[in-house]
Structures are given as structure tokens and as C-alpha cells.
């Protein structure tokens, strides 16, 4: 067990020392994706606004819910981020196969590269989200700081989520299709555009869906100007558990990954 932990922590600390590598590669990735376009990464902002706008117009019609646009904007910000992170994580090591088989870079480098990429993309969506909040005149309160803390917590859990799904995806390639389908379904069973908790099956989805709580810690301080203590508590526990699982998986599997790709 000690060897497992030492190996994992060694991998993580090497990746942190090589932070310039994953920061540079993530920026190149974003640049490459938009290099031939006129608007460049602004497309990330436009995509978010188009998506959020459609949700607000279609699902907000005849709704008496106050701040529905803000509700959807914050919910989509968090949900789209998790959806992208998890979907890309499952195939992460397969995509990095030539690097993994050709260099001695620690595996955490690839995890941090994806984390950085996702955070940059989410940065553009965040600008769109703030624009919607301003547009619909959501009252700016000091409680917004809790949302800032929530976003930091989401960034902290991201490498752990990526590691868990990347290791699982390396050993079980079918997972990528399972995850894609689950994430599509997740858009509807997560309270992104419907308001919970609700009754019956919808209530169960609300309560047992781990994403609910990550959405709430970002959303409730903005919408209701309140500190959602329970959601913050649940998220903290999930972050700790995910990191423990990620470190154990990294320690146990890091030397085997190269043989299963």
C-alpha cells in the first residue's frame, strides 16, 4: 500500500514540477482547435450562449419561476463542464498512446493537460454565463463569493475525476460509449433546466444525482443569495473520496497502462 501511495504521489509531484509542459500543451490544443477559424476561441463563447439561449427560450416560456435564465445559465455552465471533462477522460490515455509509449512523462501530465484545456474552455462559457446574469439583472450580492469558491472546488475535483475515468477507460474501452450515452441522459436527469427536488422519480433523480450538489453550490448563492451548507458538505466529501480513489488507482495502475493501450 505504501508503494502504491508513494508511486502515485511521485507521479503527481513530477507532473507539478513539469507544469510548463501541460500549460503549454493545453494552450496549443485550444489554439489548434480554432486556428483556421476567423473567430477563434470566441466560438466557445458563442456555443455556450446559443445553447443557454435555446434552453431559456424553449423551457422558460410561460414559466413563473424567478431568475429562470440565471438558473439555466449557471446550471449549464457546470453541467457542460462536467459533461466534457468526463466524456474526454474515458479516452484520454488512448489518445495519448504515442506519448505514453514514447516518453517517460508522468501520467498526471496528461490529466493536467485535459484539466487545463477544460478550464480554459469553461472560462469562455463563464464569460457567457456572467453576460446572461447581467442581462437578466440578477442581483449581485456578496454570496456570489460562495459560487466562486464552488468553482474552485470543481477545479480541484477535476483531475481526480479525469484520473478515475481515464484509468477505467484504458482497461475497459467500451466505457467511452457507455459514458457518452449516460452523459446525454444526464442532461435530462440532472436539474440543469428543471427545478428540483420535485416528487416521485424526479425527486429521486434530484437527490441521488451527485451532479445536483455541484450545480447547487454554484447556482444557489447566485440565484437565492444563500449558502447551501448541505450541498457544500456533500461536495467536500465527494471531492475527498474521489481523490482517494484517484490516487489509489494511479498508484496501482500507472505502470500497467502502457501495456493495455
Amino acid at each position, binding site marked *: 500500500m505504501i508503494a502504491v501511495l508513494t508511486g502515485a504521489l511521485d507521479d503527481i509531484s513530477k507532473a507539478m514540477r513539469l507544469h510548463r*509542459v501541460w500549460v503549454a500543451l493545453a494552450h496549443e490544443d485550444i489554439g*489548434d482547435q480554432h486556428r483556421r477559424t476567423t473567430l477563434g476561441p470566441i466560438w466557445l463563447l458563442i456555443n455556450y450562449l446559443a445553447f443557454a439561449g435555446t434552453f431559456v427560450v424553449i423551457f422558460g416560456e410561460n414559466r413563473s419561476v424567478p431568475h429562470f435564465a440565471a438558473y439555466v445559465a449557471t446550471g449549464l455552465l457546470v453541467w457542460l463542464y462536467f459533461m466534457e471533462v468526463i466524456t474526454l477522460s474515458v479516452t484520454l490515455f488512448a489518445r495519448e498512446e504515442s506519448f505514453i*509509449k514514447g516518453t*517517460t512523462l508522468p501520467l498526471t501530465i496528461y490529466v493536467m493537460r485535459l484539466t487545463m484545456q477544460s478550464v480554459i474552455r469553461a472560462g469562455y462559457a463563464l464569460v457567457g454565463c456572467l453576460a446572461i446574469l447581467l442581462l437578466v439583472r440578477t442581483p449581485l450580492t456578496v454570496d456570489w463569493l460562495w459560487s466562486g469558491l464552488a468553482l474552485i472546488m470543481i477545479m480541484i475535483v477535476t483531475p481526480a475525476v479525469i484520473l478515475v475515468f481515464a484509468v477505467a477507460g484504458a482497461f475497459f474501452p467500451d466505457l467511452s460509449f457507455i459514458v457518452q450515452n449516460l452523459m446525454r441522459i444526464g442532461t435530462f436527469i440532472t436539474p440543469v433546466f428543471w427545478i428540483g427536488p420535485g416528487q416521485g422519480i424526479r425527486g429521486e433523480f434530484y437527490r441521488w444525482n451527485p451532479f445536483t450538489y455541484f450545480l447547487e453550490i454554484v447556482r444557489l448563492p447566485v440565484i437565492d443569495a444563500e449558502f447551501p451548507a448541505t450541498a457544500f458538505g456533500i461536495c467536500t466529501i465527494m471531492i475527498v473520496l474521489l481523490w482517494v480513489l484517484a490516487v489509489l488507482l494511479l498508484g496501482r495502475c500507472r505502470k500497467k497502462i502502457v*501495456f493495455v493501450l
Partner: protein
Amino acid sequence: MVSIHAENLGLSYKVRQKMTLGLRDRRVLAGGRIEGMGRDRHVTALDRVSFSLEAGDRLGLVGANGAGKTTLLKVLYGIYVPTKGRVAIEGRVDALFNIGLGFRPEATGRRNIELRGLINGWSPDEIKVRMDEIIVFSELGDFIDLPFKSYSQGMAARLAFSIATSFEPEILLMDEWIGAGDPNFQDKARQRMNEMAEKAGIIVLASHNHGLLKKTCNKILELHESRLRTFCSAEEWFGKQASSDESRL
């Protein structure tokens, strides 16, 4: 003191039955022998390989495809951890396995030098200091500010070799890299490798090009089905090859 000591080096790994709902992928890493049955099925990629190299040695790795040359290079570089025996390496190691590895097609040659430098663990200052020397040695001229995707394979090989050798690694591992360069650059590269070896470095070069190995190496290690067949001086090995060729005629 730069050195490589490998003792009874072995690498075997289980043929993993990936959990999948579709057809099973029965591919294994290139090379090695498949042994055992059922759940004990495993690939022996290296088996009891022992050798020692000292400063100034230029080792040629020979053997048929799948004999274990690339696997041995990757064990020496640290990508694969040996499952048996031990390998002790003294010296800073760099490797050139895949010419295109780590190069970004859309980025310029200059930006690619920066990225490869970062991947090799160089600091931005170290990259800055070596940038001009790399550009001059690679003979890319004004192409250095064009996207990498516009380079020919030879130009890419020149850039890769220039970067890998610019930091003066004490041990350089290479896998069939040289075929892509033009004859002039091959001579220049060979000269740099000789200089490296003279500066008390070690070069390990896996190749099927016996002419190149004869000109470059002073020792030969021959692998056959993941086992060591011969480890001797290049003179002795090529002498044996010549006499076996004669007897065949």
C-alpha cells in the same frame, strides 16, 4: 561515470483480456514470445539479457523484427519497468524513438523546439540558449518559422535529431531514426554522435542498416526471440557475418 549495466533483464506481461462487449483485440506489443495458456497467457518481451556499457561505447542493437530491440531501448529509457533482473544507468538519458513524437503539425518549428524542450524538462532559459544552435544544426533556415506540417520527413528528422542531441545527453537511445535524413545530414549526424561518444557518452542504436552500424558502433548486441544471442565487439560480429555470408555462397 556514464554507464549502463543490465543484469538478467526480463520483461513479461500478461496478455490482458480487456473487458469489452465487442470482438477481443488480440494484439500484443510488437515483439516477444507468447507463452502459457488461458489466464496465465503472457508475453515474454525480454528474457535474461545481460550486458554492460561504459563511457565511449556505441552499441548497435540488431535482430529480426520482434526480437526485442525497441523493448530493450524502452526499458533503458524507463518507459517499461523490467519485471526481472535489474538495470543500473548512470548519466542523463535522451531518446529518439519516433521522429514525429511530440511535434505539433500546426505549430512552427521554433514553437516545436520550445515544446520539445519543455517535454525534455528544460527550463525556458535553457531553451532560449540552445534555440539558435538547434536551428543552425537542423539546417532548416527560414522554414523554422513555418508550420511543422509543411516539413518533409527529412526536415522533421533533422529537427528531431538536432533537439535530441542539443542538450548533450550522456546516453542517447535511437530506434531506426536515420533512414529519413539525406546523406549529407546523415554524415553530419554521425559526426555529432561520434563527438558525443568521444566526450565519454554512450549511444545505443537499434537498426537493420548494417552499413550504418558498421560505421557508427563499436559493440553489437544481437537479440533473438527476446533473448540475447550475441554481445561482442562490432569487428567480431561483422567478421562472423562476413564469414557466414561466404559459407552460404
